[in-house]
């Protein structure tokens, strides 16, 4: 019965519209980022990133059509096979990878270079969705149930780490969002976040302040704790947690100050405090903040940016593309981008929740989590709220691999979602 439907029927137009807006805005901003007022070039000039991006957009449209043509059951059926191919590519890149920008993670096929790491997200998402769609699999009974999950996520992320793409590896943390939705105890992501905050604070503030803070908070918790809870081990648990946290703080401090070499220490310091090395590693963040900050409310105008054009901001058309938005279009432009992403991600969560199959829901959450993680880290980095981790901003950043992989990731889900009325619920 699916045969006589048109390709676009039941496609979620809100998501598609946001997608189109993002891609077009990205294209114009790439043009602005590489535009030189001395030698004005056309946006269609294939010698520059903007022209090339147009070509990537064209091929992406072909890919999207292909995705919409292929039957939605294909992804379910071939999930493990796709995952396997991705793993093979990740292994292959270790041997035949070309060096581009210092990382050993590109495969050259003719004139094209593709980055398997970008597609690993897709493969892993499909594999996780497939695995969890098995009705016998549950995440709520024993910690042993997480071992296969750890394997699915761990193998590709290790391979990516080996090929020196730390940023892409960290993206795999995004699966925690999906796992949380599927039953991962809330304490685990909470502990992860608290630990991350503690480490960052150790770097910024004297650890005696943090220790004192922990003691005070623990004291308050115990004070206000109901007596019954206190008697039932609540007191002991609070004290243990407090001591572990203090241990982490002192341990991290000791590690950084006594074990690391000076240059390694400064690298870490720069992640949290760019001003500690303004000419070196902190340069990117300082320049990025200057570019965005100087945009003011309405920006300097299209092609009128100075910071992003004259090479003050590095990686202007890729990882730091958001600087161009902030400088040339001001707070209004930057806010529109943030709102568009929030809209897309929220829409994806809503779509995921209305799926009738667990496969579709898990996959939907994977897509939403990955998009969110990229959005949070990339924009957070440019405005100085996140350490500098080189991952692209979906649909905006220049580059074929990232545009392709995000588009495929998104449209596979939209395709599956469009077939929802014809799918029988299994959960």
């Amino acid at each position, binding site marked *: 019965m699916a045969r006589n439907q048109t390709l676009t029927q039941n496609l979620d137009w809100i998501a598609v519209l946001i997608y189109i807006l993002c891609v077009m805005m990205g294209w114009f901003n790439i043009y602005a980022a590489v535009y*030189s*007022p*001395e030698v004005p070039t056309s946006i269609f000039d294939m010698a520059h990133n903007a022209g090339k991006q147009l070509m990537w957009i064209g091929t992406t449209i072909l890919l999207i059509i292909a995705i919409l043509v292929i039957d939605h059951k294909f992804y379910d059926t071939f999930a493990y096979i796709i995952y396997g191919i991705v793993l093979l590519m990740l292994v292959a890149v270790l041997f035949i990878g070309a060096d581009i920008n210092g990382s050993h993670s590109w495969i050259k096929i003719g004139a094209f270079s593709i980055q398997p790491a970008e597609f690993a997200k897709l493969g892993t998402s499909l594999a996780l969705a497939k695995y969890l769609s098995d009705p016998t699999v549950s995440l709520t009974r024993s910690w042993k149930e997480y071992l296969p999950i750890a394997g699915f996520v761990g193998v590709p992320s290790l391979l990516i780490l080996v090929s020196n793409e730390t940023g892409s590896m960290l993206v795999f943390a995004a699966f925690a*969002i999906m796992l*949380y*939705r*599927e*039953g991962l105890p*809330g304490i685990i992501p909470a502990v992860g976040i608290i630990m991350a905050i503690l480490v960052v604070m150790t770097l910024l503030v004297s650890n005696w302040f943090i220790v004192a803070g922990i003691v005070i908070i623990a004291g308050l918790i115990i004070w206000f704790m109901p007596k019954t809870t206190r008697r039932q081990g609540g007191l002991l648990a609070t004290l243990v947690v407090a001591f572990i946290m203090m241990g982490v703080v002192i341990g991290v401090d000791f590690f950084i100050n006594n074990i690391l070499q000076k240059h390694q220490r400064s690298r870490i310091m720069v992640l949290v405090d760019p001003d500690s090395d303004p000419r070196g590693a902190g340069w990117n963040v300082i*320049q990025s*903040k*200057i*570019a*965005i*900050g*100087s*945009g*003011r*409310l309405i920006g300097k105008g299209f092609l009128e940016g*100075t*910071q992003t*054009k*004259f*090479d*003050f901001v590095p990686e202007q058309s890729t990882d730091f593309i958001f600087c161009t938005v*902030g400088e040339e279009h*001001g*707070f209004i432009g*930057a*806010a529109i981008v*943030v*709102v568009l*992403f*929030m809209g897309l*991600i*929220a829409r994806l*969560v809503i779509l995921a*929740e209305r799926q009738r199959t667990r496969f579709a829901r898990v996959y939907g*959450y994977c897509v939403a989590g990955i998009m*969110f993680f990229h959005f*949070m880290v990339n*924009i*957070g980095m440019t*405005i*100085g*709220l996140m350490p500098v981790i080189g991952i692209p901003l979906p649909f905006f950043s220049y580059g074929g691999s990232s545009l392709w992989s995000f588009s495929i990731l998104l449209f596979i889900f939209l395709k599956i979602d469009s077939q929802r009325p014809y799918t029988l619920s299994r959960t």
Partner: protein
Amino acid sequence: MLENRRFIIIGFFIFVGVAYLFRLFYLQVLDESYTIESSSNSIKRVIEIPFRGQIYDRYGNLIVYNTPVYDLLVTPYKAKVQDTLTFCRLLGIERRDFDSLMTAARTYSRVKPSLFLRQLSKEDFARIQDIMVDYPGFEFAKSSLRTYSAPVLANTMGYVSEITKGQMEKQEVEYYRQGDYIGQSGIEKYYEEQLRGKRGIRFVMQNVSGVAKGSWKDGELDTMAIAGQNLYTGIDLMVQQYADSLMVNKVGSVVAIEPKTGQILAIVSSPSYDPNILASRHFSKNYSMLAKNPYKPLFNRPVMASYRPGSTFKLIQALIALQDGVITPGTGFGHAGSPMKCHNHPATSTIVSAVQYSCNPYFYQVFKRIIYNNDTKDTYKASAEGLNRWNEQVSKFGIGQRLGVDLPSEYKGNLPDETYYDKIYGADRWKFSNVYSLSIGEGELLITPLKMANVAAIIANRGYYYTPHVVSGVGEKNKPLPEYTVKHETGIEARHFETIIPGMVGAVEAGTVMGLARIKDVQIAGKTGTSQNKIGKDHSIFIGFAPADNPKIAIAAFVENGVWGGTAAAPVATLIIERYLKRKTENKPLESYVLSRNYMPNVIVPGTKSPTKKDTAKKKPPVTAPIATTKKDGANKPGLTVASSGN
């Protein structure tokens, strides 16, 4: 149950999104500092330094001008010098210098160009320009260097150097920036505002490496640099050079003034130095060399050195006495009754012969009459009253105060009045007998050579003067500062001048001036002086003007430790007058006499106890004689006669 986690998840997403919106709002809208940083980042203010005004002499010859020079800049991160030794040899620097210059540049910035070598001459530039192409990271920037056409007027023109930290802090309107040049002395300092012009500012966009990327806002906010104004001086460069050559081997001053206008024709501070040495990049080395020189070449003697005027002051005494009516042209005094001795000369039966022979007892009597020219009975009170009145009259000759010449650091000198002596002796405890040495220009009087030249100009003008000034035109010819067009009267009638001038003519022709010091067909009126000096031989002074009936030049010459006014200072002044009036030197014997005189051994310099000839001649060689360099520099200047003894 688990479905509800979607709300936590969406809540977390929205929390991050909203946090980012707040952060963006803070960065972009609330915090303005990034806008400023952005402009300081990418908008470069390029300062256009205007050409400093040039300085001309009265005939349009250049005295001070700008020579294009080249600064060598280095951008450390681009700089690659394989063979440092060859490179150093090329630039004529030491390996040590190279290292320290590179370190300094690197400390400043690795990506921005900084100064490596300052002020390479055109010749050096031409020599190394092609070879420097092989050294990446080095580039030339055009700059300019203050250049003096003749090695004279060093202290008068002054010098220009980088602004000091103290000057930076003291400036009221923030105009100068670190590294700017500013006039530090002389005319360069006095007319700094007119000479410097107005700086232009261009705003250019630059990329991260500091490479210019076109003008900002199409140059809307740019301002053009306005060149400094040229200065036209009354200096006669040929006479000036000649006067300098005459003052070689003598410590002292010469000031020549055009009486009708107050323009300074020549002003010599000896010993001097070639002003070009303070304009070069060897400034600090040369400056400390000059500062250490025992003869103090940096001391601008014409306006800063004060001397007792000696007998030259008798002219003023005579004029005041005549004006007060305490003597008449026919008044005569004998030598008796005066504590002062006189030189051997015919009887002084009139004021004319008293001036001609510079009779000390005569002027003792004259001054006594001036002081006691009142009805007060008490001699103490009468002396005080008389002195104050006298002080007032002498002040009108510009003595005891700053004349207001357009040279910085002019000294007031000293003209004592009642309070001055009250401080020494106590009120009502002194009278004429305590202060009579003033009558012959000794005692507590202190006058600069410039003021004595002005006195000569007053007598030449028969009673008035214009404040002496070097610059007679700012921006255009004959447009001096307004204060130099004000006529100052002395309150002495012209007829009294006519009375004493014959005495001055007599002094030159048959009086205290040596016989050789004459000019054919020109009548010079003059007066010699010998300024008593406690720590060495007396100073020789001469003031005068010529021609006596229609004065074109008034002059004062001071030769320290030259003893007699008539034998040291007067010959110098005579030769300068001749050169100015006749444009040539006819009195060759006098010229060779003057050039042969060396008074340097008489000069006591700090650190030597007694001025024995051997010691000073050997230990302290005279400062660079300007005459030696005159030829080289003056020869290629059109319209200038080379001043040398053979001319």
